[in-house]
């Protein structure tokens, strides 16, 4: 079978980029960030070509300029990134960086990036890789193994659990840019007013939420107990996996043999979310929320509790964006009854395309971005939790980000989503099942779970036949 299909989809790819571009553009209005990036790129290009055009006086040889294309999302803190890029331009004037901005949503980003990689597109040199794509990319040959570049001594400087996210089949494919896992944010002022300490279990959280919402009803009728992400998308898998995990369940057995959604423990956890969370302490609107929408009620002061990724700390404490700056607390997610809590493992890795013509330069750039000084810079300027153990214990960093301690504790017990090359297909089945369970009031949970199990098991069978 010729690989001609790779080319026949190019036109489709163009249209899709356009659609996703439109979606991205309208999703948030901070277009000036994109403009600034474009400007920065121009400046970088101009700067580097000026240097390249100048023959080096000493050696008499012209310096060859290399342009690296870096696929990433629009950063939450563009200024911190612009500064990092400028610093790199100072130290390595012969390498210029062009940022290609992909959609913020992980799935849309994935679809765009894999279009390029499956076409062996040499215009991608390095990219941010979601930790859930590692098995898929490694198996498909879409990411360059880093074993020869990333020395064991250097690897030892990173948190072992973070390093693990970039490994698959005995190779290392990515350098962790941060540590990331779901956390519980809460209104410290409201909890203090009612004499509560942060909840340790979900039932406790519900009780506190109901007392506080009831007590505040007269002065703040829009206040709800909880806000999280329950739209039919990748994040729904994270949210539901946390409830299932804290009830003691698993999506798929540890050996990746059998899907067990119809397991009574799992069914009970899903039913708990159906009955106790969505439509009770949280508005049914959470069924339409991804991360950016879900944080809005919280920072507007309309939610007591909020589940999100660690970057929320920055957002919620920014007085320009948030009405509750300075009144925010953060703790690990609650558990179910006496069980320890479960949190979804997230994160982004720096990775190199195997089709890049500048893999050495790409590695130089990754080394720079993941170096100790840069991780300190990102922690201080953007609140990104470092993946280097030493920086995570740095006093200045901890002073600026007191929540990193809770985050580290949480990160070590975090649950990874199923690590198989077929994860995208499994995720779509999980999303469909969870979304149906929450959105339809009269759904037959057992039947839906059994059907999803059958579909996932069929995929796992396909995966096994490859070995």
């Amino acid at each position, binding site marked *: 079978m010729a690989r001609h299909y790779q080319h026949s989809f190019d036109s489709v790819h163009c249209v899709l980029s356009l659609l996703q571009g439109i979606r991205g553009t309208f999703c948030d209005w901070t277009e000036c960030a994109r403009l600034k990036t474009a400007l920065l790129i121009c400046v970088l290009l101009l700067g580097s070509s000026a240097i390249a055009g100048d023959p080096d006086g000493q050696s008499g040889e012209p310096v060859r300029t290399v342009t690296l294309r870096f696929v990433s999302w629009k950063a939450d803190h563009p200024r911190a990134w612009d500064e990092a890029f400028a610093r790199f331009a100072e130290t390595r004037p012969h390498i210029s960086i062009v940022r290609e901005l992909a959609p913020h949503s992980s799935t849309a980003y994935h679809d765009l990036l894999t279009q390029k990689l499956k076409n062996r597109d040499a215009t991608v040199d390095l990219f941010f890789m979601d930790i859930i794509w590692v098995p898929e990319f490694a198996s498909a040959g879409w990411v360059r193994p880093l074993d020869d570049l990333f020395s064991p001594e250097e690897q030892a400087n990173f948190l072992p659990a973070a390093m693990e996210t970039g490994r698959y089949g005995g190779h290392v494919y990515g350098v962790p840019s941060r540590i990331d896992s779901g956390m519980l944010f809460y209104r410290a002022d409201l909890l203090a007013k009612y004499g509560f300490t942060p909840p340790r279990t979900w039932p406790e959280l519900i009780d506190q939420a109901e007392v506080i919402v009831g007590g505040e009803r007269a002065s703040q009728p*829009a206040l709800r107990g909880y806000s999280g992400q329950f739209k039919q998308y990748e994040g729904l898998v994270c949210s539901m996996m946390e409830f299932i995990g804290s009830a003691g369940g698993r999506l798929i057995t540890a050996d990746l043999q059998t899907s067990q959604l119809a397991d009574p423990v799992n069914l009970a956890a899903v039913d708990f979310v159906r009955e106790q969370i969505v439509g009770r302490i949280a508005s049914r609107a959470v069924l339409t929320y991804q991360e950016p929408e879900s944080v809005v*009620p919280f920072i507007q002061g309309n939610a007591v509790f909020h589940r999100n990724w660690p970057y929320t700390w920055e957002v919620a404490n920014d007085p320009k964006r948030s009405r509750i700056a300075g009144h925010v607390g953060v703790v690990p997610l609650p558990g179910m009854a006496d069980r320890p809590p479960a949190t979804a493992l997230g994160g982004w890795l720096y990775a190199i395309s195997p089709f890049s013509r500048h893999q050495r330069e790409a590695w130089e750039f990754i080394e720079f971005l993941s170096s100790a000084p840069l991780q300190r810079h990102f922690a201080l300027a953007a609140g990104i939790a470092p993946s280097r153990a030493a920086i995570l214990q740095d006093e200045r960093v901890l002073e600026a980000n007191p929540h990193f301690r809770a985050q580290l504790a949480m990160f070590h017990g975090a649950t990874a989503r199923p690590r198989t090359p077929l994860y995208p297909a499994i995720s779509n089945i999980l999303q469909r099942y969870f979304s149906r369970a*929450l959105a339809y009031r009269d759904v037959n949970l057992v039947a839906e779970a059994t059907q999803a199990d059958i579909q996932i098991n069929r995929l796992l069978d396909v995966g096994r036949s490859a070995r």
Partner: protein
Amino acid sequence: MTKSVAKAMSADHAAAWWMLAPALAFTLTLAVYPVIASFVLSLYRIILSMPALGEPFVGLENYGALLRDPTARQAFLVTAGFVALSTALELLLGLCIALVIHAQFPGRGWVRAAALIPWVIPTAVASQMWRYIFNDQYGLANLLLFGDRVAEYIPWFASPGIAFLIMVLADVWKTSSFAALLILAGLQLIPDELYEAARIDGANLWQRFWHITFPLLRPALLLALLFRTMDSFRVFDLAFVMTQGGPGDATQVLQLYGYKAMFTEGRMGYGSAVSVSVFLAIFFLSLLYIRAIGSRLLERNA
């Protein structure tokens, strides 16, 4: 004599083919080739993330799996419901718009142009606009219905049925004017004498519509029906931009399902089978319609 005629004929023939060539090449590369390529792909099991599986030829296995796939079945039902509802509403509304802009009144040119505006807006932009209108936090729909005195607005897209209806509404808003355009062309073909004669015979407005306009408009209506059905069956961008299929697959149309199989899951063979079945469904529906339209036209000519 005959020889030279034949020569001239064949020369004409050759010239005709040359003139047809660009259009033919265009159609072959952009319409026929992708369909054939998709069909060929759909006969293989290709999973991009598992090159170790190879790319075996599996015949119609993907189609068999598609028929047994409950997710695909639901996507088909959603698509069929969308086609039926949106096409019916678009024809009805299109007829009303066409009747209005066919009438003589000052400023008709402006009204005609204005009626076409929704159709000119790209679907992706229109979808985003409707998504904003029905947003639960700052949507116009909530503001108009409840003002700003309500503690909590309605989260429209959280309800499967309403999310589906919003998708229909956005399509009706956008493409009714296209149906109106086709129907207007039909209206303009009806000779004025017929109305004058009817008026002399004492027919009222309704009788004139029911006995003259409607029967003579039927070919135009069928044409509009054909175009709208074909077009709405391959709906993708509305769902992709507004809901991505949620909640609970209530807005997951076939093309979106095919997209996810191909571009998110890397299952090229299965995704192609989905697109080919959409193509086949549209193809047979069109054959049915064209047969109906053809016989109508013949009746009129006879």
